[in-house]
């Protein structure tokens, strides 16, 4: 791989300064994604700025009952955190559905949000890819698209966002705390990732040098009635064909509140706001759930290989909502036979 310099600044400010002034520099945290890309030649930075040991790893309740997650909190630690398990089990389940135990042990919260697509053409430096080389074309357009997105796609890119955690955070109205040279700003997670449009290489709203320092999750009164369900081609260590993050508040047979986000189907973590809007105030029935998902998925533009994701997303989401209507899943419930 290409030679690079390696530095480990001792503060977030110093890290930001180091990357912001060098267009060839990138942040290194857990490295589970970046190091693969260095080996494959997908990215060839001249400088790695290691932020993994900055004091950004705390996971803390906030006074209002929410959650503040430090950017370098490890996926495993976050999933095992008692407060997260008790009050945001949706997030814990999503984390545990992702990757493998070994990867979760080093992967960080911010790194998970920033992980790049697993599109096989993106990962193959000999294939055309607008993410890797803007304007080069998109091999997936005529390629094998079983794992590609059906929502938020463009003629320039179909790549699915791979994260499970981000889907849960999208449902939870999380906010990403970003530090730049000019100070701090907060970006709602649902506005953090960019749709590919004609610039699939621009994946988030971060400017070069900006550093994610934390993710804040506001309280959700009905977070105990939530679930994360991931459908994949094998039982473990596979990216989602479809995943569903949902929380549901049913009162007197009607939907008083709902959060719904979909993974595996979108070019970004997909907050299903069309479906949410259709559901709120309406009857808490399977029929209504199905109709709401149909409305959400009407925006989809499938290919032959991934058209199944539309009925799969509908059926999985309806299944999750039905289950939440009947009873919240007890903690630690096992989904496998």
């Amino acid at each position, binding site marked *: 791989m290409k030679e690079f310099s390696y530095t480990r600044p001792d503060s977030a400010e110093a890290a930001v300064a180091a990357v912001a002034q060098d267009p060839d520099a990138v942040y290194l945290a857990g490295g589970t994604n970046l190091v693969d890309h260095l*080996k494959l030649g997908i990215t060839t930075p001249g400088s790695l700025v290691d932020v993994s040991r900055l004091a950004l790893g705390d996971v803390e309740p906030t006074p209002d009952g929410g959650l503040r997650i430090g950017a370098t909190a490890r996926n495993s630690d976050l999933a095992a955190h008692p407060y997260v398990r008790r009050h945001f089990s949706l997030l814990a389940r999503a984390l545990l559905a992702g990757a493998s135990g070994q990867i979760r042990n080093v992967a960080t919260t911010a790194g998970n949000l920033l992980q790049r697509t697993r599109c096989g053409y993106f990962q*193959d430096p000999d294939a055309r890819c607008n993410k890797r080389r803007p304007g080069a074309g998109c*091999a997936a357009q005529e*390629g*094998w698209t079983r794992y590609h997105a059906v929502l938020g796609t463009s003629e320039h890119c179909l790549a699915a966002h791979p994260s499970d955690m981000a889907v849960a955070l999208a449902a939870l109205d999380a906010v990403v705390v970003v530090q730049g040279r000019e100070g701090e700003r907060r970006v709602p997670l649902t506005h953090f990732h960019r749709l590919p449009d004609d610039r699939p290489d621009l994946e988030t709203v971060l400017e070069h040098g900006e550093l994610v320092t934390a993710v804040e999750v506001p309280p959700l009164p009905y977070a105990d009635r939530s679930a994360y369900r991931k*459908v994949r081609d*094998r039982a473990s*260590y596979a990216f989602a064909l479809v995943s569903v993050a949902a929380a549901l508040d049913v009162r007197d047979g009607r939907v008083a509140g709902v959060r719904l986000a979909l993974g595996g189907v979108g070019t970004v973590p997909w907050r299903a706001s069309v479906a949410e809007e259709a559901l709120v105030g309406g009857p808490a029935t399977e029929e209504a759930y199905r109709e709401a998902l149909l409305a959400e998925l009407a925006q989809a533009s499938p290919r032959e290989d991934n058209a199944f994701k539309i*009925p799969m997303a509908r059926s999985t989401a309806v299944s999750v909502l039905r289950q939440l209507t009947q009873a919240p899943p007890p903690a630690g419930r096992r989904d496998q*036979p």
Partner: protein
Amino acid sequence: MTELSQPADRRASIGTAEPRHDGPAKVTGSAPYAFEHPAADPAYGHLVTSAVARGRITALHTDAARALPGVLAVLSHLAAPALADTSDAEFAVLQSDEVAFRGQIVALVVAEDAETAREAARLVGVEYEESTARTVLDPESDALYCPESVNGGHRSDTRDAAVEGLLSAADHLLDATYRTPMQHQAAMEPHTTTALWQENRGHPSLTLYDSTQNPHGVRRTLATVLGLPADAIRCVAHYVGGGFGSKGLPHANVVAAALAARAVPGRTVRLPLTRQQTFTLGGHRTPTVQRVRLGADEGGRIRAISHEAWEHTSRIKEFAEQTAAISRMMYTAEHRTTAHRLLPLDVPVPTWMRAPGEAPGSYALEVAVDELAELVGVDPIELRVRNEPPHDPETGKPWSSRRLVDCLREGAEWFGWDPHHAPRLRREGRWRVGHGVAAATYPGLYIPGTKAEIERLGDGRYAVRTGAVDLGTGAWTVLAQIAADALDCPLDRIALELGDTRLPRASVAGGSTGTACWGSAIVGAARAFRAEHGSDPRTGARTLAGPEEHPEREQYAIHSFGAHFVEVRIDADTGEVRVPRMRSVFSAGRIINPVTARSQFVGAMIMGVSAALHEENAVGHGGALATHDLAGYHVASHADVGDLRARWLEETDPAYTPIGARGIGEIGIVGAAAAVANATYDATGLRIRQLPLTPDHFLP
């Protein structure tokens, strides 16, 4: 010929649960694999592979790579030594500007360290004149042809003019087409060679530490390709991290390693494939399209069988998977037709993968039999019982042993099989539940030519030497057990030496032949040793010999059999398929070591379930593989492997070899995918005639 050590023998080592001799070295990381053989100051190679599926290299820019500090050599077709024999195009590495598949070797870098080699390889610029590539298996293509023979030396086609008439007149006709995808061996250890080229007064010699199932085969091939005498090449493979057929024959990477070593004579070069490169250069199993027709009478007796297979091969090298061959012997029928058609494509070179032929062929045949049972209205076990051939339908020879029915009956009882012939569509909560059965078979192949040497050592032990390889199967253990019984001595008196062409020649670790063929050579050598040196030999007494004559082998049709029973659970909302329970019973001759045997059986069953549920690759129109790493190419994870158990019938097969053991490395995968598929049908009523059985097939 009397049989070797009956299980009742006082000192018999055969049949005992001896723990793997190579286990401690492997789990403590001290077993050297090909990359790890100690070498002073090794250099490292990295391959540059083609970005197009078909075309010509028009320009090659190596200045940037050469300018990188630490780069020792950059080879390409413009600057590589001419090979002595390029008749096998897979081995014609860097010999021309032609590109025949995406991922073919187009350049090679040698550098002081692996990272530099990799970066230099990235900096090599290649320009192509691209031609239209054909990469998709189309069973209607005009370019299909009938190969002269198929893998294993079988005839491509067997024709019987009566078949069509019988099929159209049959009381029950099953006519269905099945598809299996391109699959990969996905061994844990990537194909790797550590190579040293030396010049000694104008006489070159080459030492290879290679990840291979076949050191003598590697030596033979490289001697031809490089134009060296065989004795100038040494190939060593003490430990191999899996091969599953992909290391049974040498591939282009070994030739590349030899060229890399030749570029820096006197210096050891390590050349590992990246995981991605193993998918293109390490081989794969062809996709298949198979049409099976079974014509049966009212009682379910099959009168005619037709099994036709369409598959691909590489345009530069033929490999013809013997997919339909299983239907020549599996069930009785007066008339049968089998055929193979190959389509040469601009794809990587296919090769052996665990149970080539039987694995995809049994999927189609055993699902077809399940379908026929429903048409006839009998339980699928009963249908198989009614179609037991009294002798081998193809050769007319008697079976040395055919205990399929025993396997089916014992398995049915063990599993708790409930006879049925139509889908029962059972539901338990969110799970749809189904049971499936399928039969397995694998031939008792025999590869002649292995020799073994026995020598009495000064410490009272016996050195037992043969060039065979343990690719992770247990050969280090079971060959020692066979040697101990053959020499009639305790196991700890055996000092086994394997995996080196300096040792007596041995056949490939493939075709489930190792235990029988190498074991027979050890038995032959042991008997010759005792005849020559008696029971109290002097130190240094030594005998080299091969297996004794065993004419019985030719008089019988020799096959192993088995039966798989599978429970599947399918999520009613998401379509996800799980296999929580599998029971399989095998008839495979004498089992030398129940510990290593169980691992072979269960390992292959897992691989079969993995093929049923997960494994799939495809070559896209531009030649790019759909998946090229183990995150994308899904082999079963731990969470996919439920309660899978194997049993075997107590038996021995002296017709095959004096050891009485038939091979066990492959039969476990045969029929496993069909059993899973048949269970999904019982659960859902959906007959999915393609693999893998991914969730999208079972959505509500």
